[in-house]
């Protein structure tokens, strides 16, 4: 088995692991981590598509590589937004939970930004 196929299998396993984390972990921060695991698993599968497209003297197809690079940056932006939401939730309620009926403390500044 080539190293590319191996990395692809790891990518598949990561998607499974991450999906489980997103479903089963109650804490928002860990859902963010798990979501990032799914993302990087998909990137790895993309990576082996690139590797198997080696041609014309290149050891990997540049197009999927470029897409993975943009993907990593976009995933970071999404994580940053998700982390900011989690921290804001924690500031507002004193808890970091996604349960809608969890206790809330009244906001300290009247109207809040959405």
């Amino acid at each position, binding site marked *: 088995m080539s*190293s590319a*196929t191996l*990395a*692809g*299998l*790891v990518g598949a*396993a*990561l*998607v499974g*692991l991450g*999906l*489980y*984390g997103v*479903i*089963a972990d*109650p804490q928002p*921060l860990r859902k963010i*981590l*798990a979501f990032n695991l799914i993302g*990087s*698993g998909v990137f*790895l*599968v993309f*990576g082996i598509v690139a*590797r*198997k*497209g*080696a*041609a*014309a*003297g*290149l050891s*990997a197809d*540049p197009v999927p*590589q470029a*897409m993975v*690079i*943009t993907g*990593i*940056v*976009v995933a*970071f*932006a*999404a*994580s*940053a*937004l998700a982390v*900011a939401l*989690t*921290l804001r939730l*924690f500031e507002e309620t*004193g808890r*970091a*939970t996604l349960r809608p009926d969890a206790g809330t403390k009244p906001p*300290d500044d*009247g*109207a*809040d*930004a*959405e």
Partner: protein
Amino acid sequence: MSVLQALDVGLAFLVFAVAAWTVFAPGPFAATVGYVVYGLLLSLVWIRLFAVDVALTEAAIGSGVTGVLLIGAAARLRGAETTPAEEALTGLTRLFAAGLCLLVAAALAAVVLLLPDQGPTLAPQSMERLPETGLGNPVTAVLIAFRSFDTMLEKVVLVLGVVGVWSLAADRYWGGAPGEARAERPEPTLAFFAQVLAPIGILVGVHVFWVGADEPGGAFQGGAILAAMWMIVMMARLTEAPQASAFWLRLALIAGPAVFLAAGVAGAVVAGGFFAYPPGLAKPLILFIETFMTFTIAVTLPMLVAGPPRREPRR
């Protein structure tokens, strides 16, 4: 089995084990540290896939900048953990979820195993048109020339991310500065580290950006390293984040996509196609766009990590 194959198998197991730790770790902080380690190992995997540009991006953004973001969040959320009994799924749901995830992973693994050894590829086309761009690194050429629309929109996503993060600020902090204020007496160790590292890091960031035309590297990777340098100086409290309402900051945030878009429109007028570069001028134009993109990334990433404004605006 050769030594290299053994190394690959070991690395694969290690990546999988650390990812599993991230999902199953007892506490959020332990999970987050696991994720940072995972990002580092992933850049080793990318090296083994001969995708050095991706490895560099993963090292700078996936491991470095994301690590600061997540570890900072985990440390701030300490004590906010929910009790397991309160929210845990029941055993049956958990089993069902595990089965579903196993199914998804197995389907994906089957696809991976069924892929032909020589897949469809755009590598020959990329190499064929590469000389027209004047670049030597096909990945940079794809990013800035062949699929430039993608890359431009991706910059817009970054700006939208900043807008989203800023809009989470409480009303009275609107337009204020995010992060901690500059300290009169910064912590000496961190201040020393930041003072020594920042000049070297800026040099390396510019180097990575500059060699990106011909070697692995480019605007994303260089910009991320530059961003990290601004972040360490802010973490050491030698300086503070600018106010969200600062005009220069807003200009810096949109400079990359704006210049990119302007170049695209100019291409439609001059070179006969949206995002077409006039022949002969392609390389200087690409470097010009990349310079602004690097700058915008270097400003955007720290703003995303710093979070929403937390101090009242000064007038």
